[in-house]
């Protein structure tokens, strides 16, 4: 009988730790998204310079970006450059595949991805002025999404954190 009660408590604790960790992960992704969006905007500004002034081909521009971009966003550029050079894919397809692969390590929402996909459909297929226009448009859309993400961060990060632990406590009460 005592063993059964102890088992219930142990299982309850495990459940609580799990839900608490889930809350932490969700809160972490809410905190991480505005950071990644900010890094992405800075990278696109650098890409603009590479295209406009650096006179670089897109694969080299992407490789260079991958070298200087901090955090996991760099892998987005690295993957796109790899697909362009090694697989010889056109830019739109390489970019789409890189974005899909990035779901494993970036915390972008579908809205963020939509902006990036639209940019990928225009990159490399028009004259320089037009490229700059598309990059500028993408940066301003990402800035708006970043501002929204920062607002959400303030409300949601603590909420997810607290909800994770609260859900654990409730489950323990129900189970025990």
């Amino acid at each position, binding site marked *: 009988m005592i063993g059964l009660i102890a088992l219930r408590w142990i299982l309850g604790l495990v459940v609580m730790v799990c839900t608490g960790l889930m809350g932490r992960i969700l809160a972490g992704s809410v905190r991480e998204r505005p950071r990644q969006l900010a890094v992405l905007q800075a990278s696109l500004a650098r890409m603009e310079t590479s295209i406009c002034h650096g006179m670089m*081909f*897109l*694969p080299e521009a992407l490789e260079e970006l991958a070298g200087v971009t901090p955090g996991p966003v760099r892998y987005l550029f690295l993957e796109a450059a790899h697909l362009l050079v090694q697989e010889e894919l*056109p*830019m739109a397809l390489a970019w789409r595949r890189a974005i899909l692969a990035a779901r494993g390590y970036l915390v972008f929402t579908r809205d963020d991805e939509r902006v990036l996909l639209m940019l990928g459909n225009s990159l*490399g297929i028009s*004259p*320089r002025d037009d490229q700059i226009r598309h990059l500028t448009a993408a940066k301003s859309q990402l800035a708006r999404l970043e501002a929204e993400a920062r607002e959400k961060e303030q409300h949601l990060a603590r909420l997810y954190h607290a909800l994770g632990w609260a859900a654990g406590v409730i489950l323990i009460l129900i189970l025990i």
Partner: protein
Amino acid sequence: MNLAKDVQDSILEVRIRQGRPLSVVNSKGIFFVSPAGRLTVSAQTAYKVSWEDCRMTLQLMTRSSLYMVQDQLLSGFITLPGGHRVGISGTAFVEAGDALNIRHMAQFNIRVAREVIDAAQDLLPSLLDEQGRVRSTLIISPPGCGKTTLIRDIARQLSKGQGGACRHNVVVVDERSEIAAVRRGEPQMDLGPATDVLDGYPKVSGLMLAIRALAPDVLITDELGTREEAQAVVEAMTAGIPIVATIHGNSWEKVRLRPAGALLADFKVFQCVVILSRRNGPGTLEQIKRLD
């Protein structure tokens, strides 16, 4: 689609036209390509080029960086690594008589560049005078007869000091990157050990720069066309530097009727004219004419 190796080796040009059959040109004429990658004379059974094919072709040729070749595109061609020239046409958006932008690029003519070592072997003795100095020479032929291949080998042999010539400092003004196929500063074609390449330089400024800065023994350039380019060649001649150049045409008499040709004739720039054809394949030597 994969073409057989022997078919690939024989191709001189590939023609990609949206909505029309894929075709190639070899020494035997124009052929179409079947969906299985075989040559055929039937346009009906040939592979039809789609919009997606054209889009993909353009992206691969420009390395997904059309902005890098936008100025070249307005001239109607780009040069691929290896010196292959691609003529590209579509719909031009024109303002005040100038082509401002080209949209719907749907026609590509890929001219395969080939390095033929010793292509100038038979010709070279005729280009040298009794003292072994190079005679200024104009090579004339319609497109696709091997002018570029020939001057590439002339540069190589003069630079190496082959064919009875002593070693020369050669400067190649390669406006279209076809002669040397420079990639990241290094010629992909063998132009010999004593050759400087002015890659991508317009002929007029390139010739002037070469005269002023590179002290060439011989100047080599491709496809003279405008009067300004002919004027630059005259400048080189008056500076005492022999020049080997090419021009489109099929005879010296007809070339002289054009403004550039008339100027070259008036100043007696060239001592030798070489006429090429593709009667027995590209590079057929039709005539060597001495003008001095």
